[in-house]
């Protein structure tokens, strides 16, 4: 066996196309990892800068306020979802959906949909990350490496000579396939594993991604060999495999996406905004009690209190903000449920498309998928609740306005 490895290893090193493919895989893997690391570092730097600015801004702003109402009105805080230790490998939906918010105690539905996203012309082009390299490009590299392994020997009239010389040609072919597959897998994995360990990713996650990459390369290798065996020539096999690749990588995921969008309705975001504005503004035209009653219905702990105020009734003001949120809670939840449902549909569709499956696995582990976004979204909602509830005792006048106490709350909430 060692002799076989030595022999075929020597042989592989002299195959120019194979070596070029494996070098290309190494270069691509390194590029994707470097880009991923640069991206994650930029995100971390942005978060650090925002943390500092937010703290300075909040301290400045609160120092100028004389009542809890104004403090709540002007006191913006930051909520962020820092990139996970594997985000460098799978950027997922992070360049299109928000992962940072400036939040204050006003109605959240007017704030949470703000999206500080990048340049849409670049986002639309897509990124090249490790997940893309593995799920989309690796199959092409496997096809390139393996489609001609047997037919090439036949075309050159060498197959029979190989068979007679080696006694049995199948182990020779098997060793060649195996060595090329292993070389490709190592080329893809090495930069990833090094970067993942440097970022301190969990061993289990690294092992899962590495294992999935390996299994994926093996599966594609088997498919390529299976198809190549059944086709008249290597070129027919390659063309057929390209067709299969197109169906698995593009047609199935994109069709599934289109079906999910068509069959699973989500409310129009604009409806949330229009409705919420109506409720918030109507508060000015209806008696204060009506608003407070609606507020107390969901916050019974305050039902026995009456706001104590001079000048402006801030508690009423924040109550109608909250009532505005409550009024669209149903449609806003329906929106998130719809997105979850669409994602569940895609999860089922992924069983038809291994590339989609791999991408879902990677983005899940890297916490850059829809689930991670929804967890972040919920975390923003929870933080907003904590924030406004911290102000209520001061707004009701049962606690004195205390800047220190407000500053003690998270200035930057980290949701991860």
């Amino acid at each position: 066996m060692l002799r076989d490895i030595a022999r075929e290893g020597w042989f592989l090193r002299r195959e120019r196309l194979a070596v070029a493919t494996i070098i290309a895989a190494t270069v691509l893997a390194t590029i994707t990892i470097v880009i991923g690391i640069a991206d994650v570092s930029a995100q971390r730097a942005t978060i650090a800068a925002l943390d500092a600015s937010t703290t300075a801004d909040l301290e400045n702003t609160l120092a100028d306020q004389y009542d809890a109402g104004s403090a709540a009105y002007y006191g913006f805080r930051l909520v962020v979802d820092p990139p996970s230790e594997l985000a460098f490998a799978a950027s997922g939906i992070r360049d299109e959906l928000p992962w940072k918010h400036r939040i204050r105690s006003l109605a959240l539905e007017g704030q949470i949909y703000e999206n500080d996203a990048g340049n849409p012309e670049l986002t639309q082009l897509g990124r090249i990350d490790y997940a893309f390299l593995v799920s989309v490009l690796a199959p092409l590299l496997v096809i390139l490496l393996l489609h001609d392994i047997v037919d090439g020997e036949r075309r050159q009239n060498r197959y029979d000579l190989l068979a007679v010389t080696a006694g049995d040609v199948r182990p020779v072919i098997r060793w060649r396939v195996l060595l090329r597959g292993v070389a490709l897998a190592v080329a893809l994995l090495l930069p990833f594993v090094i970067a993942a360990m440097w970022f301190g990713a969990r061993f289990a996650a690294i092992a899962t991604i590495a294992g999935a990459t390996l299994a994926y390369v093996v599966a594609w290798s088997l498919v390529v060999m299976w198809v190549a065996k059944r086709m008249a020539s290597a070129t027919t096999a390659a063309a057929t495999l390209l067709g299969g690749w197109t169906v698995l990588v593009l047609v199935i995921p994109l069709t599934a996406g289109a079906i999910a969008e068509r069959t699973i309705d989500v409310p129009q975001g604009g409806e949330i905004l229009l409705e919420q504005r109506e409720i918030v503004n109507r508060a000015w035209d209806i008696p204060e009690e009506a608003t407070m009653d609606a507020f107390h219905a969901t916050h019974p702990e305050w039902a026995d209190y009456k706001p104590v105020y001079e000048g402006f009734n801030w508690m009423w003001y924040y109550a109608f903000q909250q009532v505005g949120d409550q009024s669209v809670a149903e449609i806003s939840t329906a929106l998130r449920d719809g997105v979850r449902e669409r994602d569940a549909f895609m999860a089922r569709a992924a069983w038809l498309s291994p590339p989609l499956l791999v991408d879902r696995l990677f983005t899940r582990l890297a916490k850059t998928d829809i689930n991670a976004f929804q967890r972040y979204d919920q975390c923003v909602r929870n933080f907003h609740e904590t924030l406004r509830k911290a102000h209520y005792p001061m707004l009701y006048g049962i606690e004195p306005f205390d800047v220190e106490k407000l500053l003690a709350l998270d200035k930057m909430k980290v949701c991860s």
Partner: protein
Amino acid sequence: MTGAVRIAVEEWRYWLRSRLAVSAMLLMLAVVLAAVISTASRIQTETEARRAMQSAAEETFLAQPDRHPHRMVHYGHYVFRTPAPLAVVDPGVDPSTGTVMFLEGHRQNSATFPAVYTAPQVAGFKGLTPAFTYQVLVPLVLIVVGFSVVSRERELQTDIQQAAQGLGPAAVWFGKSLALLSLSALLLAPLAIGALARIPQGAAVAAVAALVGGYFLYLAFWSFAIVGLSARAKSSAIALLISCIVWIAMAVLVPRLVSDLAAALAPVTGKIESDFALIEAMRDVGDGHNTADPAFDQLRAELFNEYGVDRAEDLPVNLRGIVAEVAEADLTDVLNEFADARMAEETAQAKLARNGAWLSPMLALRNASMQTVGSDLGNYHRFMHEAEDARFEFVQGLNRAHGSELSYIDDINRNNDEAAGRRARISADNWRVLQTFDFQPAPAAQRIRAAGFGLLVLLIWCAIAAAFAYRGTQVSEGRFHAA
């Protein structure tokens, strides 16, 4: 000439007898049709939904009862971005950009709810739009069908027979290219029909022509490149291999690398980040709610001087309204300065990325396509500007009504009691300052001019590929002359 046509016809006969070529063509035709139909129907639904919400928003605004004008400034208004008519071919940045923007006094909000917000997560590639299919997938089919156009004849040595019949390399070059060009034209039919169908919806004929022409140029590039590679490669197998590598590089890798590179080389400051600088800058702008703000001392003095009075109560206009109007104008200048800076950063970044057209004809076409359709960054910025104009216009309209329709005395006493509150209202007729908002991309001539760069680069790519193919067929012929 007739020889070339004959070669093209023979090539078609070969394709139609090859199961691989026929199934590739049929598969692609199905994908292209699916992309054209599903995108058209999605854009149509989106357009209708956004139009409906736009008119609902306008009706609600106009239906508001008599009120204090500043309440309406904060009640605000929503504008919706409708996709360009030709977005059915290339939605461009539409899915990644906000569709609705809240307009109110003193603030510029960003557009929210891009389609991606609720889109399912698909791996790798974004969406099955006609633009994507033609830019990425159709070239692959041209390769699978055409990789052996010249190399096959050489392997079977039928090229010698052709030459013996007096068909020179020029005829081979033209004939083989013609075969692939006619296939391109056939595959292009669904896109052309989809685009033509939008003319009644307001798509300009010139834009449709430029769009279809651009896509044809792009497919012509691939047709020539495939002929050239097939002629130059040692064997059909190598021709297929190299064509596929070129395809991966041009259609898949380079665009993404360009995107990442542009993002790294010309970073755009995030909105939250630049908002902190905006907060700083805004400290110097007076608070328009407060006439006593020292920032308005001069304005007040000038007004008193003009009307020869010495207190606000005696002015024939409402000082609070005047202050609100001036403050809004000052503040808007600052807001616009930041918004323009941000858009300039984005434009610079996009421009940098657009130079990727020199690296990949796919990027050349992509730019030209989005620009011709009006679904590029520039037209998104155009929406932002129009939305800002609409915001400024209705806010200032209300502020002017505030200054002229509401007396200063009633205004400052508005919180005294309910009756005083009622006196501090103006007629709902004033809400008519709101203009109907209907976003349209830049005029066709302007869009086509913007697309000129991309189309020009594409033409250069096409010419290079044609020359490469021409050289290739000569080299290929040279091989048996030498043998």
